């Protein structure tokens, strides 16, 4: 068989295996290993396997991943989420729809110590849903805003998927963290606006609960301090160039742990559970990374990414149209797969296409397809891709955030939650439009901080 035909067959087999319930990591491993063997014989692969897995697992940039996961897992158990929600509610709750806005703001705040969307949605759901019910919020708005709020976790640093993206396309992790901040804040603003507009048309959906007295206001506000401290030290330190992400994450783990001990929330049992959760998530991610590497070896030997890039260049489509098509493909795939597997699976194909459309790896801004250097394109596309892959969490049929929230709010039908999420989905599409139209929003902060 021609290598390229074999590559295409391999992709088909991969999709079939994923549909047939095979864990995505093992589907990649199986197709990658068999494909490479068919193309180059078994000796090459067997020799590579001696050190390939160790080589992948010991990449320094990757070491930040388990630390961020541990930090998030500890943060869930320390009661930070209650404090955050209480503070946000004291600030925003007096407005119409204010408690829903507070959920969004608290999700964003929690996203600053926890890189996982699902964990953010579920821990915030536990805190915010009972309050939203107490103030008679409509079930659609209540569940919708918490499910949507979880999406914020991915772009507000620290984000695990962002680290993985940076490793695959060989971007600087620190630069990516800088680029993600303004788009993340933009999402918060747009979500708050969405709620404000929503309650204008449906005033009964989100009644105002009135202002707190000043003693409660200040007491609640103090609850934000730990998160601000963690975010300031971890992300601030990274931005300022004081240390690289791994030591920063280690310091974050340390602070959250000490805070949990002081608050009395971290028993030995809770700490062990955090370690087990970290083991689950880290093991899963690292195995997918290994699978993706094996698949990449097969695909690049078969010439599939190069073929896709050539096809795109010869298709007569403008670079912008190709970009939009790729983003659309990510949104559609996101309905079926989790964001991390998807990033690992499709980027090795999508990224070479964009590089080719832009004019090559070392293309400067002048004369390039997208009007920016390939280095900048890497950052810009990464942020756009992360925004759209996360949309899968709130769209049917497998909107995981919606599932998590539905499990918490048992009396609200899932269709109601999906309906509640729809306005936020629309606001996310607006955000993608804004980020597409103004690349400076993404590239500005890294350029400012790194020159």
């Amino acid at each position, binding site marked *: 068989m021609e290598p390229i035909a074999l590559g295409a067959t391999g992709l088909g087999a991969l999709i079939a295996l994923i549909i047939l319930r095979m*864990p995505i990591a093992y589907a990649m491993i199986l197709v990658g290993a068999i494909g490479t063997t068919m193309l180059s014989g078994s000796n090459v692969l067997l020799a590579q396997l001696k050190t390939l897995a160790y080589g992948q697992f010991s990449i320094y940039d990757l*070491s930040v991943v*388990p630390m961020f996961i541990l930090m998030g897992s500890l943060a869930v158990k320390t009661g930070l989420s209650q404090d955050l929600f209480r503070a946000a509610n004291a600030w925003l709750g007096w407005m119409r729809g204010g408690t829903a806005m507070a959920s969004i703001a608290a999700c964003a705040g929690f996203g600053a110590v926890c890189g996982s969307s699902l964990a953010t949605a579920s821990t915030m759901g536990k805190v915010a849903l009972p309050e939203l019910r107490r103030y008679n919020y409509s079930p659609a708005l209540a569940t919708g805003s918490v499910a949507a709020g979880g999406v914020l976790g991915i772009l507000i640093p620290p984000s695990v998927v962002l680290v993985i993206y940076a490793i695959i396309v060989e971007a600087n992790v620190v630069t990516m963290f800088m680029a993600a901040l303004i788009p993340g804040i933009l999402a918060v603003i747009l979500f708050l606006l969405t709620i404000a507009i929503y309650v204008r048309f449906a005033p009964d959906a989100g009644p105002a609960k009135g202002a707190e007295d000043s003693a409660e206001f200040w007491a609640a506000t103090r609850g934000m301090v730990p998160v601000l401290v963690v975010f300031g030290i971890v992300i601030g330190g990274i931005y300022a160039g004081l240390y690289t992400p791994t030591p920063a994450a280690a*310091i974050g783990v340390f602070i959250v742990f000490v805070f949990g001990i002081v608050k009395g929330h971290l028993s030995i049992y809770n700490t062990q559970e955090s*370690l087990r959760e970290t083991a*689950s998530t880290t*093991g*899963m991610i690292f*195995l997918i990374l290994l699978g993706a590497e094996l698949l990449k070896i097969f695909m690049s030997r078969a010439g599939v990414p190069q073929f896709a890039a050539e096809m795109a260049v010869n298709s007569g489509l403008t670079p912008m149209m190709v970009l939009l098509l790729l983003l659309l493909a990510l949104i559609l795939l996101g309905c079926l797969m989790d964001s991390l597997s998807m990033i690992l699976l499709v980027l090795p194909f999508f990224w070479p296409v964009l590089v080719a459309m832009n004019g090559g790896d070392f293309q400067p801004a002048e004369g390039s397809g997208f009007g920016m250097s390939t280095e900048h394109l890497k950052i810009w596309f990464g942020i756009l891709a992360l925004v759209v892959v996360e949309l899968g969490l709130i769209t049917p049929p497998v909107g995981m955030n919606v599932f998590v929230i539905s499990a918490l709010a048992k009396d609200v039908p899932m269709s109601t939650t999906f309906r509640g999420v729809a306005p936020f989905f629309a606001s996310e599409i607006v955000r993608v439009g804004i980020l597409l139209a103004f690349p400076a929003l993404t590239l500005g902060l890294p350029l400012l901080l790194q020159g």
Partner: protein
Amino acid sequence: MAMTGTPLWGMLQRAIDVWALLGGVVLVVLVLINVWAVAGEFFGIGFAGDVELTEMGVAAAAFAFLPYCQLHRQNVRADLFTAATGPRIRRVLDSFASAVALGFAAILLWRMFFGLIDQRTFGYSSTILQVPTWWVFIPVLISLFLLVVAALMTLLADVAGDA
């Protein structure tokens, strides 16, 4: 054929759990080393070799997590498409997936054993602290052995329908 309740099963399950927690302890130690490396710099008692220890430690910890992931079926999969099929078909599919995991774990254990021998023969070690790389391969091989065990356990459970 309820194997999941036997004492041997329980023992293996505990061994895999303890091994994953030990991986977690390695991670905690790395956290402390990194905190020391940063804080130490401010006080003039820096820590040499934090980067290479982090690389080795995270790799060792990640391998230690794999058996736990396999046993508790934490490896993410798309179960949307087969949600409507009967339990029997799902069992067949899951058995196949467990068999792939078993085969992969066994091959990797075999290959990385030779990886260890290579590392030893060529005397590779870390740059600053001169830690021999093959030291890390020892816990990694134990992890892979436990991954073989875990995959075998999930395979048996799938075939017997205990899962």
